[in-house]
């Protein structure tokens, strides 16, 4: 179905609710004295929107607002993911000391706007809409990154992010303009028709794709569009780093899949996607994937700052996720979706522990984790170990299952080289993950290292995340079904 503006509103509740919440928070910010309550309002809004989204999940789907955005399980899936990220990060922020100092109202409002942007990224079926939503996310992210007042690193990170993002998105829009020229439209469906039967210039198209990849790639953080992330992750407030690392990453994946599969490829009868012959973007992404995971891991080896280390590990994981893309079939895509969920859980968990430790010690370097298991409660250390080993991909943890599906997809298509590279990488990654574990368990605390305490909220969240990591490692049938179900694009 192809709905106009008014009719579309019936399927627009999640976005509407979020928007409403944003406005509400801004208004309340003026009247309320207890700023901490604003966080709760934002949380409530998110939960409401979450509920609305779940209501829509599974409906037949269709084009909204004159084919500007689309409603299908795929978009709803990513909306859910970004909502989860937002909720968890808001929750996390309440316990974080560094965020505690900033202006709660604006903080929550901008975070939500960013989430809203991700909604649109997930659902846009028009290159212009894609650009706008991506910019919405970017701009809000710049602000959030630079949110810490009088903090040089934060501001510097924001500046770098801004410039890098500006150039990347600029390149992207320039590439889009070429697509527009060749297809005569920015609407995905039209582009698809135009390209697949028309004879567009392959080289031009390829270049356009690469330009566009610059825009998508810096959101997903894959090489060579990754340079900004270590600095930004290190400089930004930890909850925001967490948000960027999972949220915008996921949204980027969404927009990437939406563009490269329904828009410019055709689904064959055998369930494999066929890309536009002569425009070898899969080959390009294959190399990118291998380089990304390798580079990310190698760089992470010697990191001393845990946030920066997690930034590099994030790059490596982006590489793993891309594996699912290059096999050009639905198993691959499904593996990607699965991995995104798992990655969301375990990475947020890891960042949560970073927040807890930072609250206690005010530091983020590995030394501040020395003998964490023996400083007061052992729970943060144990959970951190779970998250890190899950990131390494050891059973029976969720991370293993995620990697398992990716490998499975790759091996099924007999990309053995890619598989071996990925395997070697996961062994290398053990080096630095285990290094943190070692510091937490095998080293013993100096008298100087203070006790580590955590708020009840943090404890609950930690327990939730770690138990999910374990649960999805042992019984992941439902999650698979969910991702499988979410892999439906609305294409006429």
């Amino acid at each position, binding site marked *: 179905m192809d709905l106009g503006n008014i009719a579309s509103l019936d399927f627009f509740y999640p976005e509407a609710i979020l928007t409403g919440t944003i406005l509400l928070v801004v208004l309340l910010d003026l009247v309320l004295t207890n700023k901490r309550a604003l966080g709760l309002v934002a949380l409530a809004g998110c939960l409401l929107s979450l509920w609305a989204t779940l209501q829509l999940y599974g409906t037949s789907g269709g084009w909204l607002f004159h084919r500007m955005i689309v409603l299908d399980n795929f978009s709803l899936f990513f909306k859910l993911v970004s909502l989860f990220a937002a909720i968890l990060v808001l929750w996390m922020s309440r316990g974080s000391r560094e965020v505690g100092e900033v202006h709660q109202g604006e903080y929550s409002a901008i975070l939500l706007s960013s989430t809203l942007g991700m909604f649109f990224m997930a659902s846009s079926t028009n290159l212009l809409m894609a650009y706008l939503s991506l910019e919405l996310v970017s701009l809000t992210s710049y602000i959030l990154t630079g949110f810490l007042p009088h903090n040089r690193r934060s501001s510097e990170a924001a500046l770098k992010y801004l410039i*890098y993002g500006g*150039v990347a998105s600029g390149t992207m829009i320039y590439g889009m303009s070429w697509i527009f020229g060749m297809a005569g439209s920015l609407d995905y469906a039209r582009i698809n028709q135009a390209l697949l039967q028309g004879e567009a210039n392959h080289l031009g198209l*390829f270049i356009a794709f690469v330009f566009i990849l610059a825009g998508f790639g810096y959101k997903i953080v894959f090489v060579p569009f990754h340079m900004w992330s270590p600095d930004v992750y290190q400089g930004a407030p930890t909850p925001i780093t967490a948000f960027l690392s999972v949220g915008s990453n996921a949204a980027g994946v969404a927009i990437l899949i939406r563009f490269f599969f329904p828009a410019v490829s055709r689904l064959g009868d055998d369930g494999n996607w066929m890309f536009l012959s002569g425009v070898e973007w899969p080959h390009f992404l294959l190399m990118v994937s291998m380089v990304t995971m390798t580079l990310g891991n190698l760089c992470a080896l010697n990191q001393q700052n845990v946030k920066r280390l997690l930034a590099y590990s994030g790059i490596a994981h982006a590489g793993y996720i891309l594996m699912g893309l290059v096999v050009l079939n639905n198993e691959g895509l499904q593996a990607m979706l699965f991995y995104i969920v798992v990655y969301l859980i375990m990475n947020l968990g890891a960042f949560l522990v970073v927040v807890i430790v930072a609250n206690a010690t005010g530091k983020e370097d590995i030394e501040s984790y020395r003998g964490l298991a023996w400083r007061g409660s052992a729970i943060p250390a144990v959970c951190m170990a779970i998250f890190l080993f899950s990131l390494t991909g050891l059973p029976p943890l969720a991370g293993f299952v995620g990697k398992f599906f990716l490998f499975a997809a790759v091996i099924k298509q007999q990309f053995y080289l890619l598989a071996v590279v990925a395997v070697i990488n996961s062994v290398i990654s053990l080096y630095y993950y285990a290094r943190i574990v070692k510091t937490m368990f095998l080293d013993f605390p100096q008298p100087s290292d203070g006790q580590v305490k955590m708020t009840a909220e943090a404890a609950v969240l930690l327990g939730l995340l770690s138990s999910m990591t374990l649960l999805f490692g042992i019984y992941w049938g439902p999650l698979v079904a969910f991702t499988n179900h979410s892999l439906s694009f609305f294409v006429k």
Partner: protein
Amino acid sequence: MEHPIQTDYLRWIVLLPLLGAGWNGLLGAQLQKRVGKWLVSLFACAPVVFSFLLSLAAFFGLLALKPEERFLTDRVYAWLSLGSLHVDVAFWVDPLSAVMILVVTGIGGLIHIYSIGYMHEDRSYWRYFAFLNLFTFAMLLLVTADNLLLMFIGWEGVGLCSYALIGFWYQDHVNTRAGNKAFIVNRVGDFGFILGIFLIFWSLDQQGHGTVAFREIATFASLLQGQEIWGIGVVTLATLFLFLGATGKSAQIPLYVWLPDAMQGPTPVSALIHAATMVTAGVYMIARLNFLFSMAPVTLEVVASVGVATALLAATIALTQTDIKRVLAYSTISQLGYMFLAAGVAAYGAAIFHLMTHAFFKACLFLGSGSVIHAMGGEQDMRKMGGLSRSLPWTFWTFTIAVLAIAGTPLTAGFFSKDEILWQAFSSPHGSSWLWLLGVAGAGMTAFYMFRQLFLVFFGECRADHHVQEHLHESPKVMTLPLVVLAVGSIAAGWIGLPGIFGPNLFAQWLEPVLGAAHEAHGSGAAEGTLMVFSVGVAAFGFYLAYLIYYRRALAPEHFSSLAGGLLYRLSYNKYYIDEIYQFVFIRGTLLLARIGVWIDQYIIDFIVDGSARTTALVSWVNGLFDNYVIDGIVNQLADSTFAAGDKFRKVQTGNINSYLYVILGAVIVAIIVKLRYWS
């Protein structure tokens, strides 16, 4: 083949000593402390005596049967059965093993009794008897086993006990080293033995009759004729492997080196294990498998020549030794050589005969020397003895009889058995006059060094210091009684195996069902007689020489020791430096290999697999070979390579935003180039 009668008491012959061993091993210490040594002795000796009686029963049991049906068996349970391999725990007694069990339990029993007196002062009295019993068990197992694998258990079991008893006084490393040497050298032999078993089993298996049981091997042995492996006849190779085992156990060239050191153990042990029984296991094994060896003429030649060579070599060494027990040790090696000579000329009966007689007089000699050492308060150097005949009459007389026997004085046991061997060496189809001649030469030397010992120990002036002389005393009855019995045996044991010219050879007839009829000697009784006289003459000459040098003092020993610039003397006295050579070649060689292995682990493999190899320290000896810094340098290089790679990439992360943007541009350009260059 029809299965012989099941005779349930055979197992007890073997198991009784084991019970004794178990009892004393587990409770002995307490018993000794709480109740007293007499109880330990009781539980040690009684089982052996009982199994001796059972052995007699078995013997007469056999006697009652027709010669060709003479075997009893006792199948206890199925031990291993996998694929075509079926091994039972089963004992059997035929004329051959009957002789052996009688010797083992009989002489063993005597030595047990002797030990009561000899070991009386020892703290670990109980441990001694536990092992002595265990040994008896193992030895009986060895001789009554009905298959090779079970025999191998006894084979290694006796080795273990010998190891334990040689190193009995473990506080002194000299003893423990001797024990290790014995065990390891024997292991080399066992290595051959086990390979022999494998070869026989699989070769028979190819014929569809895979088995390790003696009587079945005997039945199917003919099938092995003509089979080959590595271009050698299977039978030849198998028998050679087995013979390697025999050389280890029975101290033949090249594996004889452990026996002299084995004298570190208590003297009764030397008597029982290293003279009477264990060391004869090899001979027994060959006799047991005579049908195989007879099929392999090559092996027989090897056996014969090794035997005679050992006999001579050991004799020459014995000539100059001064330690009372070492002389006996070398004479044992030499006598074993004679047994192998006999076996080598397919005169298995003669070998077993000599085995038995030797058991008597050599046990007698050892126990006698033990009694001497006992009296001398532990002194073993003959140069410090002399004139003991007065203070130790019993010991003296029994010792003399035994010397006469071993020297081959007519009408003693040694005379008949050794003469039998020499005659066979000359007359048997496998024999030759050379073997005979060398044998006779050895006999002469035997006479010489044995009488040398006799004179040095019992005649002339006592050269020991006063302190020792005052305490000289005859040993208690419990020790002298066994001596007497053995001495009697040293005379009488010979009469059951008279040479052809004197009458029927009962012994040969008895063994006939097992070893086959003694083949027709080429050459008449007259020839046998002449040879006999000749060899006796040579022995007499040996005696006379010893008499002149060590009794009459008419000739100075230096007169001979200085021959050829003393070279011969030094060679003999230092045992031809064989030990040193072995030590250098084998022991050092192995240790060197070992260190190389460790080095490979530390500096090749770890070097390759893990970066932190730098933490592994250098072993001391490497310092000489390799420069510390070079190695560490390389190791660290490799160590950091992975991380270095990481650093290289990270250097790009300059923090300068412009440089980041350059990367984008570069990437886009590369992508386009690749596209143009490769994908279109």
